[in-house]
């Protein structure tokens, strides 16, 4: 198949129309793309991000370590578990502790539930950008199943704030395994319908084939992450490169597509949904018994805290966890979230607040695509590229 649908452009000054897509535009999120178009062809594109910037890195410096978890999950609340897990892992690296195995499995389960929900969200937006309202509704409707499951596990639909350094906040609720398996069975059936309605729909196909092609070399050069880079044929998944949680113990495949166009990115996401289901099935069956918080902190539990843990299976926040003082030093951690790799770099000066937290979100790294890939495409390709990159402005702006 032909990879190139880009059209040769010439840079001329006159006859160029400047179109501002966003930030108040049905086709973009809270961001603006300044397009210079020659006829229907984009000559130059400049992403203008930062409309939902909250300076999280600065805010994090003024709060205790665990208090930053609800802050960071507001980068992408649809993917809350994945985007805070990196921060918690970075703290754990500073402290030099590892969560117990059961906690690792619970983390994996929630991370995968979030990945599915996040992919469905992204593809829903993608579908509506292509004008396919049915798939938008279907993706969002089916996402509800996984949001519901996450709610049963964590107590909140989206903003889970589910991790403590060294463990998780709650154990699996009773009956969770059955419900999860039912949900998986339902979703496997739905995936077949998605194929007919969306992935193999000739209209959608013609919109995606060859659009937004990013070559293998260009992908590495631009430093894009997540499903986008894997759709360009680069073998990079943090779950394999730097294994965390229970991933190294589970049997799953990370799909790689060579084509690098919007279609490959879409298929990539759908394949990852399948793999996520596989991971969930295994994780919920193989989950070991045991504590869900590191014993170092369990030892410090008072009687009330222990009672609650035993009766309600809820890990209370021991003051030792709240007044965490990691030793002086730095550590980085990264996780593979739905949209790609979250990178956290924390610097501790031994105080109860972080000295510096650096977070690089996948959408921020992906936003560079608009500048370097859009030129040479038609204006109507913008939604297809924007959607297939699965760009999420609040995540990019932090």
């Amino acid at each position, binding site marked *: 198949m032909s990879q190139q649908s880009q059209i040769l452009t010439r840079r001329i000054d006159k006859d160029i*129309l400047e179109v501002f897509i966003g930030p108040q535009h049905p086709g973009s999120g809270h961001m603006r793309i300044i397009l210079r178009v020659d006829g229907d062809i984009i000559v130059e594109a400049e992403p203008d991000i930062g409309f939902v910037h909250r300076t999280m890195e600065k805010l994090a410096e003024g709060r205790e370590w665990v208090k930053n978890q609800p802050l960071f999950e507001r980068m992408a609340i649809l993917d809350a578990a994945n985007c805070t897990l990196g921060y918690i892992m970075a703290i754990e690296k500073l402290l030099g502790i590892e969560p117990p195995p059961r906690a690792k499995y619970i983390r994996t389960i929630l991370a995968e539930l979030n990945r599915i929900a996040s992919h469905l969200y992204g593809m829903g937006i993608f579908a509506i950008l292509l*004008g396919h309202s049915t798939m938008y*509704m279907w993706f969002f409707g089916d996402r509800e199943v996984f949001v519901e499951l996450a709610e049963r596990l964590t107590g909140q639909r989206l903003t889970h704030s589910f991790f403590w350094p060294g463990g998780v906040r709650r154990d699996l609720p009773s009956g969770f395994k059955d419900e999860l398996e039912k949900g998986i069975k339902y979703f496997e059936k739905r995936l077949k319908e998605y194929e007919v309605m969306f992935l193999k729909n000739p209209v959608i196909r013609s919109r995606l084939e060859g659009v937004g092609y990013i070559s293998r070399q260009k992908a590495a050069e631009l430093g894009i992450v997540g499903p986008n880079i894997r759709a360009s044929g680069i073998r990079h998944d943090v779950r394999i490169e730097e294994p965390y949680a229970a991933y190294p113990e589970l049997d799953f495949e990370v799909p790689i597509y060579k084509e690098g166009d919007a279609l490959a990115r879409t298929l990539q996401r759908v394949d990852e949904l399948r793999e996520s289901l596989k991971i969930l099935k295994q994780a919920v069956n193989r989950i070991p018994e045991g504590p869900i918080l590191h014993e170092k902190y369990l030892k410090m539990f008072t009687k009330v805290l222990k009672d609650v843990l035993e009766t309600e299976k809820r890990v209370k926040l021991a003051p030792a966890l709240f007044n965490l003082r990691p030793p002086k030093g730095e550590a980085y951690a990264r996780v593979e979230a739905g949209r790609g790799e979250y990178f956290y770099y924390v610097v501790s000066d031994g105080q109860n607040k972080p000295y510096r937290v650096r977070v690089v979100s996948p959408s921020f790294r992906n936003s560079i695509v608009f500048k370097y890939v859009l030129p040479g495409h038609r204006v109507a390709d913008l939604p297809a590229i924007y959607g297939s990159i699965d760009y999420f402005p609040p995540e990019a702006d932090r």
Partner: protein
Amino acid sequence: MAIVERLIDLILWPPLFYYIIFPGLIFVMIFEMFLIWSERKIAGRVQMRYGPLEIAPRLAGAPQLMADLIRYALQEVIIPRTVDKLPFVIAPIAAFVIALMPLLVTPFSPTFLPVTTEGSILIAAALTTIPPLLLILAGWASNNKFSLVGSARESFLIATYEIIILLVIASMSFLYGTLDFLKAVEAQQALLWGIILNPIAAITYFVAVMMGTSRFPFEIAEAESEIVMGAFTEYSGIMFGLAMGISYARMFVYNIIFVLLFLGGWSPLGGIVTGNYILDSIILPGASVAIKAVIISLLMVFTRAVYGRYRIDHALKGGWGFWFIMALVSIGLSAAVVYLMEVF
């Protein structure tokens, strides 16, 4: 009382009745409301939800569209300072009115039509080509980049679908050997429905109409996620409501032509004789035509639930490539049918 009788006489005066009440303005309004409601309902059913429901759940939310209409009617009409005012105001109104004009020559029964002419097919086909020009005017007058892009897309599309529609209509009049709707329907009653005689023409016409009235997947000229609302980005209030209605009105008119050319017009209900003039010559055949047109229109709005939208170059490629050839093939098929009829 004389005044009341005069008024009733005036209303029932065929040209006025025809153009204002049935199948003119009022009927088209009701039809549009029904169609938009059923479009939302159909999409809702396919999309795991209800569609309009909150206003009168027992009536499945049917009064919702009344509410929408009232809202559009009462909303402030904002005319931006930067627009070219006269064409900006005239374009949607004129487009709506002209979109209904072909009804002047489309018969709803052998006797129920205001203008009798030998070339009614020709006139109807000619009149249907005007509203898109006014859409382009609306976009141009709006002085907005999105409107401009929208009307540019419309102007690309118009050439594509108009030529297909005109070719198909030509092939059918070739088949029936007439340019008069009445004779075309008579020919179908004598022989077979047009859709059986020339199915290729029927499919081609169907797709071209979807393209022309911006139904999915050809909803390119007002693609919301790309160019906001196309040519109508700057409109508000009742002007926007009118602009929204244009494509539905055009679809209705195109589908009346579809029914007359392909679906046997007023048969089978038109053949019933009860003795009552109004029943025989207006209600039964009229209902027969209208119901068929509604069913075809529902089919067209159903595609919203299945498709996304094409890119403009895909639509042009499909239009000038595949469907243009199909239109030519349909002429060939008509010729073959005419030849076969003469042989047997």
